[in-house]
Structures are given as structure tokens and as C-alpha cells.
């Protein structure tokens, strides 16, 4: 067994009233991929922040090669050889991709000036390792989260560090990209790097990790070997009780496929982002929408919701043509969109959890009819309980919540409006396995009560489990549709665009 590189014991961290970590720890060995598991808000990100000098621990010790370290800033940690990708993409959106890869460690040429040629070449080389072929001179903000996530990973890989920390790197990636990432991680492991890795996908844990540490409520549950810990046991360790893997769709559920057409798109298109699309969304039905990253799913959702204007085609709601110019109009028609980009388009970090949850409902009611505070509290508390949002207090700023819990807050905001059509763009991103079950259960329940749902997901399994119909996008248009109950392989074939050859499903 190889030597322990990084070890943390008895870590404690309090934020005001919430205890984020209490007696947590882990030990990381050279040449291993180590998964850090736990429910949303268990303290994974906080632990990583303590290890890398973003926050200072209240108690506990961190040792690197047996030597106690106390990094005060991320820069200190980097100097110690710890390279990190934080959960929220923490790059500078205004800088080019190349610069984001090299900021802080620019190669310098003559006169000590930055050697841009080398920066560009280096950037391309780094991205090539992840099989990402993009223009490295464009500002990062021009790329979707997935690409940004890949850039962040590439940046961390570029630092020839001893320890690599990845906090939920895969939450917004599709299968292909996850595969690329895992390949690189395995290569680095061979070179003796210690890799700490957070994810909520159990499959991925079993696919790459050598060891698993589980946290629960800020405390350490234990360290396990994947082989000795079956799926169910891992979930039990994380949640602290047994969780039934609830099924999603109940096939042939009442009303599916027979509801009235609520929203219909005919030839809806937008230059440069979406080719003409025909789509029908029915009350009481879940339409699952799959596709690769960049296939145009988000664009379609935005057009349906009036966030972007279509320049071709028609949209009608309840058989009446509509021209949505503002999300407010969509909301007035009973539409709801839970956006993909949580940080920029979803959460309002400075507002409290309660205010975040009531925001869309209040917007629909208009500014004159303010919801009474008691009513707001009641709503917030109901959804906090329903979705299992872990927040110290509904009056806490939403920005202080853990990533997964922020995602749940945004979801709660839209559920609170009791919409007729709910568009969910990657809603389960970063949400833990138990909560995911509950959320999917809730979506199905709402659909059965008559709501129309457009469920966008990168996960085949979610598509097949939830969809009453499954639509797939490719190259910015609708590539085809499958009936509910289709197999994962069928969906995959449609996504890849070939007649089901040689495409492996997610493990």
C-alpha cells in the first residue's frame, strides 16, 4: 500500500450557527483515486475548502507528507502541490480560455513578459488531452457550463501537482466527456498522483475510485473499499438509513399521452442556435429530452420560455398563438423554467432561501399583491421539507447553502408557482442520490396530477425512467422521438445518430 500523502483529522468548521464539519477527516494516498461521498450539505466542499486554504479550520490538523500544514490562501495550497477544481466553476468569465488555463503561472518570454504564443499552444495541448477542440482565444463566458467545467479541469491538470482535488467535476458533463476525464484521471494515477474526487453518481464512484470516504452531517462515517461496499450499503452510509430505490415512471399511468396539448411549437427556430423544431407538450405527460452537450436543448427551452426570441415558426399555448417577449409573459401563461446555469440564471445568492423560493410566484402575482410574510414562510418551509433542503434557517442567504441545496432551492421556486408546464433543464445536477429519487418522484406525481413536464437531462437512465415520451436532439434540431419505456440503448443510438452501434451505456 502506497504512502499517505495528505491526511486530515478532527476537522471542525462552523459558519455562524451551522456546523458544517465536526470531526471530519480523510487520508489520501499517492497513486489512488479517492471518492468523497455524502449527501448535499454533508460538508464535502467545506472539507475541500479547508484542505486548500479557502477557509481556515476551527480545529483539526492537516498533514502533507507527515508535515503539518496550514495553508492560508489557495495560493499557499498550490505552492504545497495541491491543485483544485472547486464545485462552482471558479474561473474568470471575462478572460480567454487560454488565459484561464494559465492565469497565475504564465510562461514568460523576453523581458519577463507573458509569452502569448506559448500560452495559446499550451492551452491547446492541455485541452487536447481532454479531447476538447475549441477556440482558446474566445472569452470563457461565451461557452456553456460544461465547457467551462472542462476548462477548469484542464487547468487543474496542467499544474503538475502531487494532489488533485475535483469537487463534482462531472455534474454538468455528458458521458463522452466523463469518459475522457476518467481516462486522464487514470493516467495521472499511474504517475503517482493522489486524486480526491467528489460526485453524486454512484456508477462513477465504482468505475474509477480505489477508495471511498463517506461524510454525514459534517462527521466522518468511515473509509471503505468499493469492492466491500455494495451500492445499497454506500447509500445507507451516506444517508444514515436505508433508502428504497424508488422507481420513476409507472407505466401506463393514468392520463399519459392523452392529455390536451398545452404548448405546441411549429417550426420554431432561431438563427445560429436552433433549427426548426416541432414539438407538442401535453398536460399530464413527461417529455424527456436527451442529447449531447451543445445539441440545442437549452436553446429550445429558452425559446419556449420567451428568454430568447424565435425568428421563425410559431408557438401556441392552449391552441392560441402567443408571442412571448419576456419570461414574465411565459410565467403568466403558467410556464416555468428551471434553468441550467444555476449560478448565473438561477440562484439569487444575496437573497434568503425564503425569498428565493417565493420569487417567481411573487413575480407572477405582480408587485402590488405582496405575499404576506407568514405565507412566504409557510411556503418556504413546505418546500424545504418536501425537497429536503438543508439550510440552517430559511432566512439564511441562499449563497451560503451547499451547491446541491441551492439547486433544490431553484427547483422549489418553480414548483411553488404550481405551473402548468414545467421545463427542467438538468434539474438534478449536483443533487445527491437520495434527493434525486425524491425529486423524480415528485415530478412524476405532479405530472400525474395534470402538469406538463419537459425534462432535459444528460443521463440516459433518467430519460428512460421518467419519460412518457423521449425526444432526442442532435445538431440543434429534433433528431427523433421514442415512446416511453424504450431502452437505454435505443436512446443512446438516437443520441449518437448512428443505428445503435458500439455505443456503450453508462456503467
Amino acid at each position, binding site marked *: 500500500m502506497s504512502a499517505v500523502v495528505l491526511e486530515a483529522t478532527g476537522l471542525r468548521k462552523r459558519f455562524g450557527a451551522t456546523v458544517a464539519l465536526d470531526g471530519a477527516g480523510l487520508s489520501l494516498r499517492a497513486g489512488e483515486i479517492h471518492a468523497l461521498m455524502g449527501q448535499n450539505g454533508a460538508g464535502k466542499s467545506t472539507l475541500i475548502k479547508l484542505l486548500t486554504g479557502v477557509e481556515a479550520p476551527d480545529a483539526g490538523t492537516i498533514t502533507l507528507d507527515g508535515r503539518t500544514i496550514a495553508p492560508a490562501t489557495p495560493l499557499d495550497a498550490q505552492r504545497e502541490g495541491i491543485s483544485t477544481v472547486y464545485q462552482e466553476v471558479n474561473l474568470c468569465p471575462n478572460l480567454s480560455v487560454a488565459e484561464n488555463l494559465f492565469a497565475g503561472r504564465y510562461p514568460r518570454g523576453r523581458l519577463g513578459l507573458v509569452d502569448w504564443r506559448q500560452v495559446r499552444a499550451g492551452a491547446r495541448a492541455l485541452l487536447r488531452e481532454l479531447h476538447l477542440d475549441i*477556440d482558446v482565444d*474566445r472569452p470563457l463566458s461565451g461557452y456553456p457550463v460544461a465547457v467551462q467545467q472542462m476548462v477548469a479541469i484542464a487547468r487543474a491538470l496542467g499544474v503538475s501537482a502531487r494532489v488533485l482535488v475535483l469537487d463534482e467535476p462531472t455534474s454538468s458533463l455528458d458521458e463522452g466527456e466523463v469518459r475522457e476525464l476518467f481516462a486522464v484521471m487514470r493516467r495521472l494515477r499511474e504517475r503517482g498522483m493522489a486524486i480526491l474526487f467528489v460526485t453524486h453518481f454512484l456508477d462513477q464512484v465504482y468505475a474509477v475510485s480505489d477508495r471511498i470516504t463517506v461524510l454525514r452531517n459534517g462527521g466522518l462515517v468511515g473509509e471503505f473499499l468499493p469492492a466491500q461496499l455494495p451500492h445499497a450499503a454506500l447509500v445507507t452510509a451516506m444517508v444514515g438509513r436505508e433508502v428504497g430505490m424508488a422507481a420513476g415512471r409507472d407505466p401506463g399511468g393514468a392520463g399519459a399521452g392523452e392529455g390536451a396539448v398545452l404548448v405546441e411549437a411549429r417550426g420554431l427556430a432561431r438563427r*445560429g442556435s436552433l433549427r426548426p423544431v416541432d414539438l407538442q407538450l401535453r398536460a399530464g405527460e413527461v417529455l424527456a429530452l436527451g442529447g449531447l452537450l451543445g445539441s440545442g436543448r437549452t436553446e429550445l427551452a429558452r425559446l419556449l420560455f420567451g428568454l430568447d426570441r424565435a425568428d421563425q415558426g410559431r408557438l401556441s399555448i392552449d391552441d392560441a398563438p402567443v408571442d412571448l417577449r419576456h419570461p414574465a409573459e411565459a410565467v403568466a401563461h403558467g410556464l416555468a423554467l428551471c434553468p441550467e446555469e444555476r449560478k448565473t440564471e438561477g440562484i439569487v445568492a444575496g437573497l434568503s432561501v425564503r425569498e428565493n423560493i417565493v420569487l417567481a410566484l411573487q413575480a407572477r402575482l405582480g408587485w402590488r399583491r405582496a405575499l404576506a410574510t407568514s405565507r412566504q414562510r409557510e411556503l418556504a418551509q413546505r418546500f424545504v421539507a418536501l425537497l429536503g433542503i438543508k439550510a440552517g434557517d430559511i432566512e439564511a442567504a441562499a449563497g451560503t447553502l451547499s451547491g446541491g441545496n441551492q439547486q433544490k432551492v431553484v427547483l422549489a421556486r418553480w414548483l411553488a408557482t404550481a405551473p402548468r408546464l414545467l421545463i427542467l433543464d438538468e434539474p438534478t445536477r449536483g443533487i445527491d442520490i437520495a434527493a434525486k429519487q425524491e425529486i423524480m418522484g415528485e415530478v412524476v406525481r405532479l405530472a400525474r396530477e395534470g402538469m406538463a413536464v419537459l425534462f432535459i437531462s444528460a443521463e440516459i437512465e433518467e430519460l428512460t425512467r421518467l419519460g412518457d415520451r423521449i425526444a432526442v436532439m442532435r445538431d440543434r434540431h429534433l433528431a427523433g422521438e421514442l415512446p416511453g419505456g424504450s431502452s437505454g440503448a435505443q436512446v443512446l443510438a438516437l443520441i449518437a445518430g448512428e443505428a445503435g452501434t458500439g455505443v456503450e451505456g453508462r456503467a
Partner: protein
Amino acid sequence: MSAVPVRAGWLPRLWRDPRHVSLAVTVALFVAMSVAGGVLYDGFLSPQVFLNLLIDNAFLLIVAVGMTFVILTGGIDLSVGAVVAFSTVLLASLVQHHGWHPLAAIALVLALGTAFGAAMGVMIQRYRLPPFVVTLAGMFLARGAATLVSVESIGIDHAFHVALANLRIPLGGGASLSFGALVALLVVAGGAVLAGMTRFGRAVYAIGGSEQSAALMGLPVAATLVRVYALSGFCSALAGVVYTFYMLSGYSLHGNGLELDAIAAVVIGGTLLAGGSGYMLGTLVGVLVLGLIQTLIVFDGSLSSWWTRIAIGALLLVFCVLQRLLLRTSQRRQAG
């Protein structure tokens, strides 16, 4: 996979970057405005008129370079005009009343300006105070200190200083450039290199994009912020020195409202007040645009005092609105 067509050649590549487009639009508007001036007024399109833009706005240009760095971090520095005034008064007083050699006085003034900026930077960075307010207090302080040195305007007649002030670099055809303008051009060049090609400069942009991310990327955020304000202080002091070449006097009311001109120049030059995006070259054009507006009005010579104000506002408006609309259409075309 990428939907962006990758064309060869640097020109299309330049055009693809919205930041370059903004610069090009600004320059084009500047040219258009100059041509309009040439059509309307005799003698407008002479080289000296354009060199005068540099000569008359040398100090503004220098201040604007420092301001560009500050704004790139997402901050603002309102103290620049007052620091200019303080520098001129102190310099004049040291040379005229205390018998200092101008070079010694210049050295002291530059050091003081830098230290003053750094002090404000520390307050902003360490104590998390809003830059607007800290530098506003800095503005009061510097202006007040200037009046404490002298309420009177002090003329400088030291031979060395006068010689520098009257130095003209001939450019042929009777046109010439002043020493101060030369210094300003050097500062712009230096600023462009510093912003574009050094670790410090790139850290400035990163902080402007997201201070939190910059810190997580391991950039020296605190030191960079303090240095940016120190740099702005230095530029202001240098502008003060150049001012004394321009005017051969030190006066506590010099540079009144200069901070707004500098901010306007930077923003017109395409730098975002929110930080993280902008070019030194844009700032140069921004200063020239402001100068051009002034020149147009002087050449017109028929405006009353209030019409002068209205005309400046209107020209500013026309410029900014056109810039904005042109940018918007070009972005549309790109998206399409």
C-alpha cells in the same frame, strides 16, 4: 463540434472578438467626427490640431491610464484630480519657495502620489471599504492638502522647468509635440504593455472578472489591488508634473472635475465599469474623443456658455449611442 467557423487569417480573428469590434467602432466614430469637423470648419484638419489634442490632454491621458487599471479591477478612483492639484502645488511651492531643484521635487511628488494611492488601496483591500467612498475621502484630503500648501496659484520660473515646458519635438511641416505629450504617449505604451503582457496586468483583468475566482486561482489579489491604486496615485502625480510643464504653475484648483473626464474617457474607450474588460488603446481614443469634442466647440466659436454645455452633452450622447448601436448590430451579425 464547435459551431464557430474557424477561419484563417488575423483580420477575421480580430473581428470575431467583440472587444476588438468595440475598439474599431470607437476609432471609426472618432474618424467620422474629425471628418465632420473638417467639413464644417476651416483649418480643422491640420496636423497641429490633432497634435494639440495630445498636447492639451497629456495630463488627462496619463490620469486615464491609471484610471483604466483601477476600473479594470472593478474599482474607481475619484481622487485623481485632487492628487494632480496637490502635486502641482507642492512641486511649485518646493521649487519656487524652498529652492528645490525641479528634479528633486518631481521625485518627491511622484513618491508621495504613489504612497497616497497605496494607502487608499490598503483601506479598500484590507478593510473592505467601497473604493468610491475611500477615494472620495482621498479626493477631499488631497484637495485640502493642496489648499494648505497654498491657496494662491504659484507660477514656476525655474530655468530647467521652463526649458522642459517649452521643449517641442518637431514632427516636420511645422507641427510639433510637447514634452508632456511625449511623456503621456510613453505612459500609454507602458500601460498597454503592463496591462496586456505582464502577470500583474493579467491579474488585474482576472480580479475584474471575478475577485473570488482570482483568489481561488491562486492570484495575489490583495497585493495586486493595492498596487493598482498605487499605480493610479503614481499616474496622477505624474500627470501633476506634466501639468506643471503645461501651465508652469501650481494651483489648488487645478484639475477640478478631472476625475470625471478620466472616467468618461476610459468608459468611452470601451472599458466596462464593472471591471475585467477594456484596452489601454481604447482609453487613448477615449481621451482623444473628449478632446475632439472640446476642439469642435472651440472651432465653432459661436456657442454661448450654456449652449457649450448642451453641445458637449449632446456630442457625448451621440457618440456613446452610436457606439452602442453599432456594437449591437455587429454582435447581432456575429450571432447570426
